């Protein structure tokens, strides 16, 4: 099960270690963890609510993982994304990739989180001192995709 959407908190270290376990052909594991920060866009953040599109979310993530698997020779991929109520300091998302060599693991995990940021149906609503606010999409998340465009 390479893709998991859940309300429960998770342990990033455990997920990182699980990507290698007993696979003696794996030389390189890369794990990315996104955390809730206590500050964003100039405001203190006391927590957030993560909304998603049940049904579509898992499909969107699986499609992104399949695209990565077509592009790089990977052993295992693991994506866990939380929804619901989150506190500052809690992990939001884990993207882990194992492979024989390091460049595939680095590039595939970076690719997956870049695509997740612009293609997977999640929306963050932050609690700030001025009340709740929907997080605005970052321009940089779109331009981050440029590096994955096929080279001519």
């Amino acid at each position: 099960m390479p893709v998991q959407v859940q309300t429960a908190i998770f342990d990033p270290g455990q997920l990182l270690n699980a990507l290698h376990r007993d696979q003696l052909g794996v030389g390189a594991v890369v794990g990315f963890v996104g955390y809730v920060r206590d500050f964003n866009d100039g405001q203190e953040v006391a927590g957030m609510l993560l909304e998603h599109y049940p049904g579509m979310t898992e499909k969107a993530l699986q499609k992104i993982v399949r695209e990565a698997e077509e592009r790089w020779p990977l052993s295992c991929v693991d994506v866990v994304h939380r929804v619901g109520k989150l506190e500052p300091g809690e992990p939001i998302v884990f993207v882990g990739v194992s492979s024989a060599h390091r460049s595939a693991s680095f590039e595939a995990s970076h690719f997956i989180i870049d695509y997740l940021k612009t293609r997977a149906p999640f929306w963050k609503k932050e609690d700030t001192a001025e009340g709740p606010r929907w997080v605005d999409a970052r321009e940089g998340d779109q331009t981050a995709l440029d590096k994955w465009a096929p080279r001519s």
Partner: protein
Amino acid sequence: MITVQFFARYRELLNQDQAHMHWDEHLDTVGALRNRLVDRGEPWILLSEPRLMCARNQELCNLDEPLRDGDEIAFFPPVTGG
């Protein structure tokens, strides 16, 4: 029948997460559906914002995506997960 879903800011501003609409031959694309909703006036006009994203049967699509009776369509603002 078309099921239309709204998420996040759209869901809040439209004050609903779901609508059902009868399909007819003029509703031949997801964009035509969007336009029919926008024509209702406030607050539906917000669906005309250029950054709107949409999905047909739970897959991202463009506004020129063909629409068929029975489809599940979703409109939502740019995603902000991760």
